[in-house]
């Protein structure tokens, strides 16, 4: 449902956005309800804790409502909110310098096939992503879930494109190892 709201139905949102521009608090709350769950989950997956996610989601909406006149409607409103959320996440991670964990030190056990059981519970995958090291988690979130290209990731993180590709491969391997281990335990 969240993707349905995030990506499409601009007309549905347009009226709400126009009302927000006019300062309508009820329209603000409706937009919050439409997008908050997805943005919150994105933030949790980036930050690996719910307290940070709370703050990031709040900051995202405060920024969005205060700058809503800057939103020109050229892209989906949900995507605009997502970009703000992701920028906030990366900014916080950078401030804490947790971001620069050296993934080179991480050695996934075996470079095995990158496929999983289709029936695996999404909750298990979500939790496994949360447990990844900061940089691995960030790169995996950006590339595999949020659709950023390696070139964009390289610019955002201040790394080279090839580093982004290499580290994504490692991140993916780490996630696969975690999933296999969880499934094995179960």
């Amino acid at each position, binding site marked *: *449902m*969240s*993707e*349905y709201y995030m990506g499409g139905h601009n007309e549905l949102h347009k009226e709400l956005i126009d009302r927000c521009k*006019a*300062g*309508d*608090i*009820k329209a*603000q*709350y409706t937009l*919050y*309800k439409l997008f*908050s*769950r*997805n943005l*919150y*989950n994105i933030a*949790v*997956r980036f930050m690996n804790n*719910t307290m940070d*996610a*709370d703050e990031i*989601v*709040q*900051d995202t*909406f*405060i920024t969005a*409502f*205060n700058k809503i006149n800057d939103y020109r409607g050229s892209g989906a409103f949900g995507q605009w909110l997502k970009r703000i959320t992701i920028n906030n996440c990366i900014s916080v991670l950078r401030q804490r310098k947790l971001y620069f964990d050296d993934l080179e030190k991480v050695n996934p056990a075996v470079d095995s096939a*990158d*496929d*999983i*059981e*289709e*029936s*695996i519970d*999404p*909750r298990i*995958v*979500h939790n496994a*992503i949360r447990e990844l090291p900061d940089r691995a988690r960030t790169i995996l979130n950006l590339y*595999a*879930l949020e659709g950023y290209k390696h070139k964009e990731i390289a610019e955002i993180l201040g790394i080279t494109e090839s580093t982004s590709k290499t580290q994504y491969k490692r991140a*993916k391997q780490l*996630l*696969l190892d975690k999933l296999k281990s969880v499934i094995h335990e179960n």
Partner: protein
Amino acid sequence: MKIKLEKYLQKNQAKLDVEEPDDVMLWEGIRKGIISERKSSGFNFWKIAAIFLAVFTLSYIVYNEVSKDREREFTLSHIDKTLGDREKAYRELVMMKMEAADFNAVQQRSGNDILQILVNELNELDTIYLEAMNDLKQHGYMEQIVEIIFDTYEKRIRILEQIILETQKLEKYENDMREISL
């Protein structure tokens, strides 16, 4: 059945949203954040308040001075009684709108871009009005100048009406905020 990790993530992206946000707590923080941001733009607010005061002080002085001058020098009523009556009607309407704008209420609220624009327009009208009155004093009756003076009155009334509406909108916004927070 096996599936590539990337494909699984794309296919199940919405299902990965398994965490439930605390909407009450989050919204309360957002609501306070919006108010706080508005208050932090206090520079604009005081700037607007100062301009309001300047504009209306100026307007008040202009109207009163013009009224006094009329008695001993030159007024529209000296040119033509109909023009004088028309000006008087406009002045009364402007004063009525100024009272309705309720500047105490305006000052209690943070300013916004719309108010800023309206105030700037009022300032411009004041300047045009003063220049036109000086021209009349210096050169005597000129139909074009008289029309400019009436035009400033009409525009002033429209702007004051917009200020009243904007203030009412701010009041409604605050009431809605209170409603949602309850």
